[in-house]
């Protein structure tokens, strides 16, 4: 298997957790910078923690030796890089644009990961799609901030 491609369930779940943690830190930073959207940004950060719990619960609940957990994914992590760097003094519009890009990347990850593991990982793809759906709901909320 090619170097750095995520194949195992364990590393794919860890990667999902990292995306959630990184984007939570990003929203904390945005909340500190932009009072106008602080409540929304903080709510997103808090929801990220619930997303991690939801994904972990699904994984630990269904992981078993009888399925192809070691071969369930084929994900290139570089395809889901989050650009969370903001220029000093960037306004709310720039922050929202960055947040929208982050959300779309994470939605892409969950959707593709769910598709790849469909039929192999039982509740995991369903949990991924639920998180993707929740995040899709954020797009409208973000756009409403500007």
């Amino acid at each position, binding site marked *: 298997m090619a170097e750095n491609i995520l194949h195992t369930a364990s590393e794919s779940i860890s990667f999902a957790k990292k995306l959630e943690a990184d984007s939570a830190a990003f929203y904390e930073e945005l909340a500190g910078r932009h009072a106008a959207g602080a409540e929304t940004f903080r709510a997103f950060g808090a929801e990220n923690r619930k997303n991690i719990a939801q994904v972990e619960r699904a994984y*630990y609940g269904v992981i*078993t030796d009888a399925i192809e957990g*070691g071969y369930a994914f084929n994900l290139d992590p570089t395809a889901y890089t989050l650009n969370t760097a903001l220029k000093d003094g960037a306004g709310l519009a720039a922050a929202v644009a960055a947040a929208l890009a982050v959300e779309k990347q994470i939605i892409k990850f969950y959707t593709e990961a769910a598709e790849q593991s469909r039929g192999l990982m039982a509740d995991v793809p369903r949990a991924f799609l639920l998180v993707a759906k929740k995040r899709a709901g954020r797009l409208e909320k973000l756009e409403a901030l500007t």
Partner: protein
Amino acid sequence: MALLDEPIKEVRTLKNYINGEWVESKGEIVDVVNPANCKTIARVPISTKAEIDEAVAAAREAFPDWRRTTPLARSRFLFRLKELLEENFEEVSRIQTQEHGKTIDESRGETRRGIENVEVACGIPTLMQGYYSEDIAHGIDEWVIPTPLGVFGIIGPFNFPWMIPLWSAPYAVATGNCVIIKPSSEVPNSQTRLAELAEEAGFPPGVWNVVHGGRTVVGGMLDHPDIVGITFVGSTPTGRDVIYKRCGETGKRVIAQCGAKNFMTIMPDCDVDRTVTAMMTSYFGNAGQRCLAAANALIVGDDDAFYKRFVQRVVDLASKIRVGYGLDESIQMGPVRDKDKKARILRYIEGCLKDGARLLLDGRQVRPEGGLPDTCFLGPTILENVRPDSAMGSEEVFGPVMSIMRARDLDEAIRISNANAFGNGNSIFTTSGKAAREYQYSIESGNVGINIGIVAPMAFFPFSGMKESFYGVLHTQGKEAVRFFTESKVVIQRWF
């Protein structure tokens, strides 16, 4: 990818858990070695006959009170244990990887399977109910009461250090018996940790015991008149010639789950992508060290083009499997348990090549990732032109080796599979319901997979086995385990 944290950080000498106390053994002490990095992670005693006798005496003494503890109250101990297992899920999974070598996904899967047996046994108030017939004759009623028997011995293998004793122990104690678990001395940390959690769950002293060791402990269990039954998982020679035989001689109940040589039949109409992925897990998962691992791949049909394409896909995917330490999350296959097992597998491969087989993928010189010593590592190995009656084609190798064979049609594939002495976990991959139905009807295998590569029954189904893969009548797990651990007391009642 960085390694996950190792839970075992210092080398300690393990103790036996007898009568609710952690007791130092007087037996010889041997090292427990992590097969991935060859570091000693613990020392385990090879306990003496006196120590197994002491455990049996404690369990025997605990039995009357435990039996009188109501099934509902007993189930509450199991509920507490289940909660503790969930709380410590990650730690116990990593212990398995550290002492056995399997990948972290495999260890977590093993942990989950073990917990599922505890969950099923929590239903003992219902599972243990008897049955009743009113008026079997005029004014006479009859009923059955499942009653516990006493002390059971549970002998675990090296390949699933956590899960396999849990195929038996939760049902044994739930039904009111006491247990003595003898883990494999190669992987004793998992059962030590489980006993610590059982202690924390509050099982009364003597109900749950662990005695480490080898043949002396097993012999002590088999010969002891106060042990009423044994569950065993291990090799066929030991299961058949020692465990089953001696239990018969001493009048003990026995479940002896033994070796395997599993055939996977691949029909030309199979879903190739899904079949090939399933094959990776089935042949190479747990480094091939599972009694449900497929060993022989029977590719059906005379379409040479399909055969070549299919085999090439298998070889391509297997050649990319990442081999290394299972605490690296990206690793897909760990080492075999020790260097002697590796040497044994190598002998089979070399013998097979001398017999005329062709090597399609050679895992003998694998370099594990992370610069680890290759002492216990083998890569995925694929051979074709393997004869079903050769040593490689017919005996249990217990390693990451796939032997490819061809069969003209389904009937021949079934004939070849059934000619093997074992009957543990055979499977078919097809999109034809008719072929699948014929296969499940005719195949002589205790566990049968249809588009499933590892036919591991869930906790609420028996873990079956046939022919030289199983000796006994009832099986571990679920309702059959409840029957195994209870005697049917029949009452016939008439009042004057």
